[in-house]
């Protein structure tokens, strides 16, 4: 099952790597200093279809298969995980639900500007009292004759500071047990962006709180049917997990490559530290975990493309890749010693970026729940 032998996938990897090395690498460390992505960089990414990776061509996208998609996210994240995060959230949980649940009119209205990169997507589920417990959403959608009025606050919204088209989970004022998803555009009166979060990693991504105060939206901005929120959310997250898994894989791959290069170059006791068995063991463990991660991601992606159930497999991929990202970046810092703890070396950034992959789009604990539920309900 060596997916990488496919020529198309090799060309995708080579093309994205060339772009990432030439255009993103020189800016990555600087981008980490503060929120936001350079306009020039975003402009360069637009015509290459990075914002419409799996969008059908008639809606302005590249119509990539899911393995190609995972390769793109891995390669961008290998250089800048924060930008990889922007791209995967935009493409998966931003655009995908509209493609999957939207009406033809909604798709034609909202998807082309997103695929062109003119409007960045965001996915708003998390609130002060809702996250892993998606049923805890308190943002309210009051139904009126003209449509809906949203009131509530969403927190830790990836792409929050640059979002243009936002999917918002809210409960009905009549029935707080049923959530629905609404498409909100950033120019809608009553919508505003809070302060950018000061986070440990992924610092280039403008993660923010979003406020909805008497935010009036038209009736046709409800995605899918009213009350379908949980279904849309879970479906979106299944897809999103492939992207986050690929992102974590990219971080681990980057940390591993830096570690190999450093271990060969760093001399201690008159020899490169790569000659020491301890370092060799570290590198071997890192390589095994990364390879296994890649196979898990590609398996989940392949299942999705075949139209087969992939929820548990995406959860396995996300769980394993994010754990790998944390352990591999930790070992990478260890191999680098004091230098690895310094911002002079990229592994320090990878170390900070890795942790959150175990938290967002379903914590590792939630992934285990998804996997266990699948195991225990599967026919014997």
């Amino acid at each position, binding site marked *: 099952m060596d997916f990488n032998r496919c*020529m*198309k996938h*090799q*060309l*995708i990897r080579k*093309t994205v790597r*060339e*772009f990432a090395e030439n255009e993103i690498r020189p800016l990555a460390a600087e981008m980490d200093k503060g929120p936001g992505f350079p306009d020039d960089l975003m402009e360069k990414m637009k*015509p*290459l*279809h*990075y914002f419409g*990776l799996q969008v059908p*061509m008639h809606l302005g*996208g*590249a*119509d*990539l298969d899911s393995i*190609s998609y995972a390769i*793109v996210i891995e390669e961008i994240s290998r250089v800048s995980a924060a930008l990889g995060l922007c791209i995967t959230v935009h493409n998966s949980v931003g655009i995908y639900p509209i493609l999957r649940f939207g009406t033809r009119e909604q798709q034609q209205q909202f998807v082309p500007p997103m695929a062109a990169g003119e409007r960045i997507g965001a996915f708003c589920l998390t609130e002060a009292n809702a996250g892993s417990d998606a049923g805890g959403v308190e943002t309210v959608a009051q139904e009126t004759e003209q449509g809906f009025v949203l009131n509530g606050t969403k927190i830790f919204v990836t792409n929050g500071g640059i979002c243009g088209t936002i999917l918002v989970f809210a409960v009905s004022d009549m029935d707080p047990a049923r959530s629905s998803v609404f498409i909100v555009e950033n120019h809608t009166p009553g919508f505003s962006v809070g302060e950018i979060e000061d986070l440990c990693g992924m610092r280039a991504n403008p993660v923010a709180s979003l406020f909805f105060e008497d935010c009036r939206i038209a009736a046709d901005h409800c995605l899918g049917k009213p009350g379908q929120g949980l279904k849309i959310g879970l479906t979106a997250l299944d897809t999103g997990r492939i992207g986050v898994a690929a992102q974590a894989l990219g971080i681990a791959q980057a940390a591993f490559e830096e570690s190999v290069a450093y271990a060969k170059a760093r001399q201690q006791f008159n020899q490169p530290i790569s000659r020491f068995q301890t370092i060799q063991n570290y590198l071997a463990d890192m390589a095994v975990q990364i390879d296994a991660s890649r196979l898990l991601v590609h398996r989940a992606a392949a299942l999705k493309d075949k139209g087969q159930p992939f929820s548990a497999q995406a959860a396995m991929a996300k769980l394993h890749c994010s754990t790998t990202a944390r352990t591999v970046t930790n070992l990478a810092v260890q191999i680098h010693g004091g230098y690895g703890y310094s911002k002079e070396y990229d592994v320090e950034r990878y170390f900070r970026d890795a942790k959150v992959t175990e938290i967002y789009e379903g914590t590792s604990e939630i992934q285990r729940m998804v996997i266990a539920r699948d195991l225990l309900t599967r026919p014997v």
Partner: protein
Amino acid sequence: MKILTTVKKVVDVELNIHVENGAILDKGLQYVINAWDENAVEAAVQLKESHKADTTLVSLGSGDNTDIIRKCYAMGIDNAIHIDDPALAKADSPTFARVLQKVYEAGDYDLVITGKQAQDTDAGQAGIMLAQFLNIPCVSNVIKIEVTDDSHIQVSRLGDAGTEILDVTLPAVITVSDGINEPRLPAMRGIMMAKKKKINVMDLAGLGTSFEDVGGTAPTSEIVEFMPTEKRKGGQKFEGEPAEVTAKVVDLLVNEAKVL
């Protein structure tokens, strides 16, 4: 306007190349598109975009060239021909030019764009010879192409004394320098569409010729042996008082290196 552009698959010279007993070892070799040919492809695709030119790529050589051809498709080339014949492994520049002549004659092209040379052999002959065999104009080392009308282009070329601007009557062959453009990275959509395009693969017989017909059996030159480039020797470092060191360096330059 119909454009024919040529693409050669070459060994990636950025990586280590190992030579043993006068031959290049296959082990560890990686292949890439000749960089100047990538400029030629970009130039052709730009003319497609600006003047609706129909672009065809031809790649010569034995073996699988699918990967480089797919990349060119992803960049925007319309059609591709691969002349895949084991005999071409031993071909010299005039033979390649004769094969290109056959391809050209089968296609009724207005303009041929090639890289000015291949980065593996650095011969720089095939494009110019093709023009000679076809008896059509040729301009080498081109850094700019402008379409004047259906039968004329104006090109700028890097000459010894500066940039030369020439009016060229079509059909013609131009060989391009890397200064002409920055080859685009394929867009994701281009890569997805490239896999659906067909590559017209044929051997010399399929092209209506033979290795003998194109002069392959009577080559004008033959590669006898490859030799590795000599590794650069380390320099010498002198320490001490400036006056002493200077005297020592001058002495060595005069008496050992004999350059002064």
